[in-house]
């Protein structure tokens, strides 16, 4: 690790001011991607702005027909939250499947979303549930937020503060973990809200999280695992690595989607 200057602001305002003032700064949330990269000397930010001292960024609340989660809320807190468990149990279950206990007690929802790792779990939930990413400057619909591999719509000086998840009528997340890293090899989040159905896939896409239109249409007609039978996801544009090639990933998307729908309809 190279030397850097460390800042620990106490408020969002201080953090935003620091971000505007200091050169070459990185925000530190859970640190699970940033710190290993720095230790390997692959990243060398001049300044680290640690968000862990900002109490206002953490917390979970129910706001009408939505659950709003602070950016610095740990995965374990989402998983164990009675609010989330009651309102969107699929989201609590997703959080409970991230990494291992150490990761879940350190990693944050804001950090995960801002990093947009193509194998992270939260992006699938954000897209499928139609979440809104709230920053210090604006509100961004999830659809517009995840722009590519490790790329987001976040601009200079922008910090995620909260994520708002509208309540679905039915939802489930089915994850096929990479046996080594436990990241999603394929993760499928299925959500039904009113007439709308969304199927979001993480782990598989070469450009990160994506929706499967054909599945959504079929599920709109009838929200049942049977509706997905015979729908094949093309392997073009999917990741291939030593753990899973594109064909296998394409196949797994089908399996995971059917299981997610079965789960969401209580037929698993």
């Amino acid at each position, binding site marked *: *690790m190279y030397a850097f200057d460390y800042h620990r602001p106490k408020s969002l305002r201080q953090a935003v001011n620091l971000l505007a003032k200091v050169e070459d700064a990185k925000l530190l949330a859970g640190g699970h991607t940033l710190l290993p990269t720095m230790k*390997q000397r692959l990243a060398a930010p001049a300044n680290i702005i640690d968000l862990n001292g900002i109490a206002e960024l953490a917390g979970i609340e129910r706001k009408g027909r939505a659950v709003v989660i602070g950016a610095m809320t740990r995965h374990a807190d989402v998983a164990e939250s009675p609010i989330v468990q009651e309102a969107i149990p699929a989201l609590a279950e997703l959080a409970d499947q991230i990494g291992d206990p150490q990761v879940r007690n350190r990693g944050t929802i804001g950090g995960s979303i801002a990093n947009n790792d193509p194998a992270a779990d939260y992006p699938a939930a954000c897209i499928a549930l139609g979440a809104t990413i709230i920053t210090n400057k604006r509100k961004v619909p999830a659809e517009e937020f995840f722009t590519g591999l490790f790329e987001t719509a976040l601009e200079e000086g922008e910090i995620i503060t909260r994520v708002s998840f509208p309540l679905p009528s039915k939802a489930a997340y089915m994850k096929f973990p990479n*046996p*080594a*890293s436990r990241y999603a090899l394929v993760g499928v989040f299925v959500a039904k809200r009113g007439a709308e159905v969304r199927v979001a896939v993480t782990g598989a896409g070469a450009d990160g999280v994506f929706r499967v239109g054909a599945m959504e249409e079929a599920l709109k007609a009838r929200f049942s695992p049977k509706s997905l039978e015979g729908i094949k996801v093309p392997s073009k544009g999917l990741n291939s690595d*030593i*753990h*899973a090639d594109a064909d*296998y990933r394409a196949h797994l998307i089908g*399996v995971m989607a059917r299981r997610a729908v079965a789960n969401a309809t209580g037929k698993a």
Partner: protein
Amino acid sequence: MSATGIGAAVRRKEDQRFITGKGQYTDDINRPGQAYAYFLRSPHAHATIKKIDAKAALAMPGVIAVLTGDDLAADKIGGLICGWMIHSKDGSPMKAGPHPALAQGKVRYVGDHVAVVVAESLAQAKDAAEAVKVDYAELKAVVDPAAAQKNGAPQVHDVSSDNTVYQWHLGDKAATDAAFKQAKHVTRLDLVNNRLIPNAIEPRAAIGEYDPGTDAYTLYTTSQNPHVARLVLSAFVGIAPEHKLRVIAPDVGGGFGSKIFIYAEETVCTWAAKKVGRPVKWTAERSESFLADAHGRDHVTRAELALDDRGRILGLRVKTIANLGAYLSTFASSVPTYLYAPLLSGQYDIPAIYCEVDGVYTNTAPVDAYRGAGRPEATFVVERLVEVAAREMGLDPAALRKRNYIKKFPHQTPVIMNYDIGNYHASLDKALELADYQNFAKRKRESARRGRLRGIGFSSYIEACGIAPSQAVGSLGAGVGLWESAEVRVNPTGSVEILTGSHSHGQGHETTFAQLVSDRLGIPIEHVTVIHGDTDKVQFGMGTYGSRSGAVGMAAIAKAIDKVIAKGKKVAAHVLEASEGDIEFKDGKFTVAGTDKALGFGDVALQAYIAHKFSGQDLEPGLKEGAFYDPTNFTFPAGMHICEVEVDPQTGVTTIERWTAVDDFGTVINPMIVEGQVHGGVAQGIGQALLEGARYDENGQLVTASFMDYCMPRAGDLPSFTVGMTTTPCPSNPLGIKGCGEAGAIAAPAAVINAITDAVGHEDVAMPATPQVVWRACQKAAQRMAAE
């Protein structure tokens, strides 16, 4: 049996310090004035080094020295050695290329040692390493051993134009070919034994120290055999004479073979300590362990089994290409030859066996012994063949095994080994019972109702342990003898120190060895301390590997104890004024036969040291004896492991539902520790079968260079194990011990793959059998069924 004697499940004495964080590992040791070493490693798999410019690095803060292969050469420091000479079929000696501790003109794998930076702090050493300018001329790399043997392949070492280290063989080719001519059925398999990366919890570490006052060196290091390290560093590398080099291997956190070898890092730290006039410390980061610890396995094999029409095995023919990596590590040459082919007879009476092995250089990390070392590879070949043969011939796999088991002992196999004892039917029968084999079909139907495929797989393994009779291994090319030494030091108050040449790095020697002493001398186990891992304390020793510490290390202790008792009788005779021949020793008491005159062990110890009751002419004072034990044969632990799996055909996910292990380890000293060894070995074997696999890309970059991609087994990947025992005490071992440390890792891979292939109905399941591999096998099975 006493509560702490042989056969008692005594809780481990060493665990108090380990589980309270009081262990003393190499990295816990800090020497006054110590500096830190950081190794600059090759980013290329194959390149010539045109120039190394360290000027800028030397000018950086805290930098003490930057040393390269040129400095080693200038100091006339020799290269690392491979201590087992293998001769090719044509009689020519193996082609061993140079193995300098720091590269001299060429790098041969990613992670190869280019230079060492010594600085006041590790961070400064790392910073400076980035400023060392190395001018490389990249060469094409070769990572696949079969490709390495082809014309025009990149040449790793000048000594071998086709990268072949040796073309070795064992057995009778003509007799084996004749057996195949008679065969009514031949089973053929192409098998890959996947490359593994050891990953002990404690990474390797070293501190070199030089004392100019005594002109002597001390090396603290993570070694399974500190005396062998001292011998190699003295006699071959030439850092210091043996009596001027002390090697200390303190608490060591796991080895699995990877800490047997003498590596570049400890060599350089010891040498550099004198050069810079400071203790020099290095601790591997996990990334370095992945790149530069010796890897294991990596065989490509064509195997054929000849049978008659009733399923009697007539012959076995095996051709293996073994990837030895870029350099020959300390025992690399022996692993795919003498630790492999002599086990190809398995538990079976096979009249004819012929095995050819090519050892090959590639631009990958050196490959050497890893838990089981050659024997897991042999078991995988034999047990896959037998299982597939049974399926092809429509025979019950248990019945086919029974038909071919060796029934009479001793049994001379066609491949060197003379099995002294065993009862393979007994372990099979017990395993079938514990595994509830008779209800397997019912469980399979129940799984099918849930859309799952259930399969069962057997593995009748055998291993040659207790390595080894020195004369025998010497005749096969070993550079050392493989006896063990022990010293029993009785203190005047009757407590005992055991000094052993074995080394404990997780095996629980401090408990097991003390149990033997407590049992034999009739003293409380708390009165016994086991000392190991320091060449200044223990006179000599060959270390711990090859499941040898119980069978060989403890036999040496037993022999020394016998001498202590004999001397004690002499002392007691003087004190009790009786004739020595009338003194009996039992339950910690020396008695005069037929009388009530007696002396406790502690009384005799005191009398031996105060020496008031005998003159120096009659008897030497003191009570301390040493012994060297050289085995007369290998030992042959064997057993049956049965694995039952369930496969999800939609995803290819395999879960292990049941694991039954029935092992015959001969006499067991501590059944709890032995069961732990079985659990650990099986976990490693399941790791190899389902999860672990080192992969290089075509340019020689290690793709699985961290736990993000290299999958170690976790508790959740494993079932609860059912462990049973059968016992035939080893006749050639004074304690009846055979050894247990490697059994699980040897047995498990074949059992897992046999179970998966049974479940999915297709034999094409390579290790590691990841979900993708198993799913494809399911697809192939479905296609074949559709075609039929």
